[in-house]
């Protein structure tokens, strides 16, 4: 409840222990009793109104506690906040399978397509926030109804906004949606019951790592993960950038709900946040790391236990042109062995380094080698390499991207594009070559964008396909003193292809997001 009167606020403060130590020693349920039950009545032992009727991700609980502090002025010490998030995510979280469809939102992946929950939920909910935010919560119908009351009470303008005022928003939200959402995302599920009963994976040990940063950087190496005295995880990364040097990193991570790895650390001297998920068997960690100030800038991360069954995680690069050679790195498990590694027909390899988790070889592809897929085999593991004669198709990813002007209180949001090449095999099949080197340029997307000179105002496209938007605010040089928004075509021309081969993507440079919650 909003704590509007001073006496009530004081009453809460009196209830509160003076308490870093308390936070460390009190059980989670006791913390909820101490800090939350002033408003959320304990209706049965350990059962608190509203709180006990909801399951959420760690980020979901962080957003809830943020609101309790910001809107309801709950004076929550940081260490109590952190302990509450752990307790709530551990006891009222989402099972791995439940969190999977919305992981892109937790990972803050830019320029991804949101979930499709049908046209009505798409407008009723998805016009303000991602549907992943909905899909990452579990409630029963009466609690979803309370959630609707919260929405209208907290955001009363929503029935006046475009796509809200064209329909009886409140009537739909309060009559139809609760049951619909409870059918999709109910509180009690077999998945959650099973996950709660399972032993949770231990993640300490040695791991093999690959990472890809859109825009042309690949990494590989190892992670040493251990538990510290507090039982939290500490990771040390020893990575190598393909075509570059060594890169060290570390992180301090908490694993919520038995599988949700949340780390903060550094990589190559830059601050990082890590949003990873451990597989249910504990052999794999996958996710995304990003710059804490620019969540759109980051990379894909995959780690495999070094002693996991033989598997190739990555072949870097994943495509070779006939008549050329390259230093190829194969990353995985079980790569060592007596038999010579093979890169397939027409590819000659001179091994430079071979260990259980990495194989480096100088690979030459004969000029007359047949284009097509090759099986890379090393030890008991096998992976894939493509041999090609020419790039026949170029696709710009994302096909539709968003960048945001910024400056001042809100940082600009960049957009990273990649050129994905493909070759056509003699049989007609189009095979992806992965990201290829390209020259980039921005063009007006349409006649109106040309008329308003969006290319000149909206920002600049860097050589690696990253768009850096311009500053925000009225620009007196533009028509109507318009903001530096733009509607642009992003064009890639492959360096290793004829002039005619181009790929096109669409970029909208738009205004700032004024709120930047952990789950959009």
């Amino acid at each position, binding site marked *: 409840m909003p704590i509007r009167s001073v006496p009530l606020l004081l009453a809460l403060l009196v209830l509160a222990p003076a308490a870093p130590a308390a936070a460390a020693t009190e059980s989670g349920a006791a913390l909820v009793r101490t800090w939350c039950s002033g408003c959320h009545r304990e209706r049965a032992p350990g059962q608190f*109104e509203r709180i006990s009727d909801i399951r959420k991700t760690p980020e979901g609980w962080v957003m809830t506690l943020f609101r309790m502090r910001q809107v309801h002025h709950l004076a929550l010490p940081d260490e109590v906040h952190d302990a509450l998030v752990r307790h709530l995510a551990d006891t009222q979280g989402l099972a791995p399978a439940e969190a999977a469809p919305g992981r892109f939102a937790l990972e803050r992946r830019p320029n991804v397509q949101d979930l499709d929950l049908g046209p009505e939920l798409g407008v009723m909910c998805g016009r303000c926030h991602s549907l992943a935010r909905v899909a990452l919560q579990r409630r029963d119908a009466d609690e979803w109804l*309370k959630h609707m009351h919260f929405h209208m*009470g*907290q955001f009363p303008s929503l029935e006046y906004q475009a796509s809200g*005022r*064209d329909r009886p928003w*409140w009537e739909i939200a309060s009559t139809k949606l609760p049951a619909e959402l409870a059918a999709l995302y109910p509180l009690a599920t077999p998945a959650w019951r099973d996950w709660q009963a399972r032993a949770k994976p231990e993640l300490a040990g040695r791991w093999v790592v690959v990472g890809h940063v859109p825009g042309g950087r690949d990494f590989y190496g190892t992670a040493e993960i251990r538990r510290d005295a507090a039982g939290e995880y500490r990771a040390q990364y020893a990575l190598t950038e393909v075509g570059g040097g060594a890169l060290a990193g570390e992180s301090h991570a908490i694993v919520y709900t038995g599988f949700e790895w949340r780390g903060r650390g550094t990589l190559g001297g830059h601050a990082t946040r890590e949003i990873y998920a451990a597989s249910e068997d504990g052999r794999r960690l996958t996710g995304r790391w990003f710059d804490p100030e620019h969540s759109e800038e980051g990379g894909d991360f995959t780690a495999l236990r070094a002693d996991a069954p033989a598997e190739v995680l990555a072949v870097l690069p994943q495509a070779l042109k006939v008549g050329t050679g390259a230093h190829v790195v194969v990353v995985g498990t079980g790569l060592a062995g007596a038999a010579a590694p093979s890169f397939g027909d027409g590819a000659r390899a001179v091994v430079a380094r071979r260990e259980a988790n990495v194989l480096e070889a100088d690979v030459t592809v004969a000029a007359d080698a047949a284009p097509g897929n090759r099986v890379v085999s090393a030890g008991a593991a096998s992976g894939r390499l493509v041999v090609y004669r020419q790039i026949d198709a170029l696709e710009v990813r994302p096909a539709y991207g968003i960048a945001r002007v910024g400056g001042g209180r809100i940082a600009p949001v960049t957009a990273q594009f990649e050129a994905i090449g493909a070759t056509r095999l003699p049989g007609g099949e189009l095979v992806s070559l992965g990201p290829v080197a390209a020259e980039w340029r921005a063009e007006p997307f349409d006649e109106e964008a040309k008329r308003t000179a969006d290319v000149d105002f909206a920002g600049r496209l860097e050589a690696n396909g990253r768009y850096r938007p311009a500053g925000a605010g009225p620009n007196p040089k533009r028509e109507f003193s318009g903001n530096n928004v733009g509607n642009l075509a992003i064009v890639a021309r492959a360096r290793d292809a004829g002039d005619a081969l181009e790929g096109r993507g669409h970029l909208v440079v738009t205004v700032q997001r004024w709120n930047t919650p952990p789950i959009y």
Partner: protein
Amino acid sequence: MPSPRRRLAAALLLLALGAPALAGDLILTGAKPDKLYVIDAAKRTVLHEYRIPGANGLVGSLVPSPDGKRVYAVINRMESIVGVDLATGATVFRADLSTPTERVKDFFALTVTPDGRELIAYEVPTRLKPSEYEVEQPRFAVFRTDAGLKAQPVRVYPAQRRMHMLLMRPSGKSFYALGFELYEYDVKTGRLLGTRGIQHWEMPGHSQPDLLAFWPVTEPTGVFTSPVYAEAPQDGKPTPTTALMSLDVATGALDYRDFEPMSALIFSTVLSPDRRSAYGVYSTLTKIDVPGRKLAGRVPLDHTFYSVNVATDGREIYMGGAMCDVGFYDAATLEKKAILKLPGCADQALASLRVLAAH
């Protein structure tokens, strides 16, 4: 030369006495965080910059009292309504709508009876329970305007959801409320007297229209106008089309007429004194030939303006809202005549620009 305050006092006195025209229009506008401006339109000068205590970042929906001595405004996150004495700047009326257990927002909808004695506010309430909110039915709250700074409603009536404007009828017996539809309510009893179409308008072949306006401008004609957006058949195809809605609050005449396939966004409109032209603003100034049902002119503006008004003699267009400029344009040629920058470049945001005719 008389001081601005004496000049205003003289103008208001003339207003009160119904004296012949000696002075021009006064323009009222509000701005963040707590500003109320009184502007001499002819001289392009700010006569008064008043501060409204406790405005908390919002001064919106200005509604002058019928005698022109006060202006009412929605302030404080839409949770309070104030009346400000225009001669002194003193807050002479204040209703704080919320209580510790109920959050109440007025979505910019308020009106005052012709005798100036009662103010009607549209309230959107939420019950604040210990661990949950409860959405309550919106309502009209009627206040006595002489209730001072802790005004409490004297009558409360249930209302529909999603209303955004109230317009008093000159009889003082009923008022219009704009929301999903156009409703008319009895001032004394709160009884719903009638419902006419907005979403259920009678425009053959047209889609459901979109109308949202927070600028309750009826001067100088007593007619409220607003752009309405819908898809209308054009060469057999549904085409985004802009219509002008007009509501004569005296006669009750309600009219919708398409005037162009939508080619510019318009936030607010005003009707000229001769009722032959309407003017609209957003990033352009648009002139509409009302009887001819067509676009009569359009010029780009320096930037976005939200709220438009017209001189009492119809010769100039005034515009405000969105930023800190008050614009003066020629009503015949649409040429820019002057821009008045508000002191400190105060952001007018959603504030309605109102005109007090001093004749």
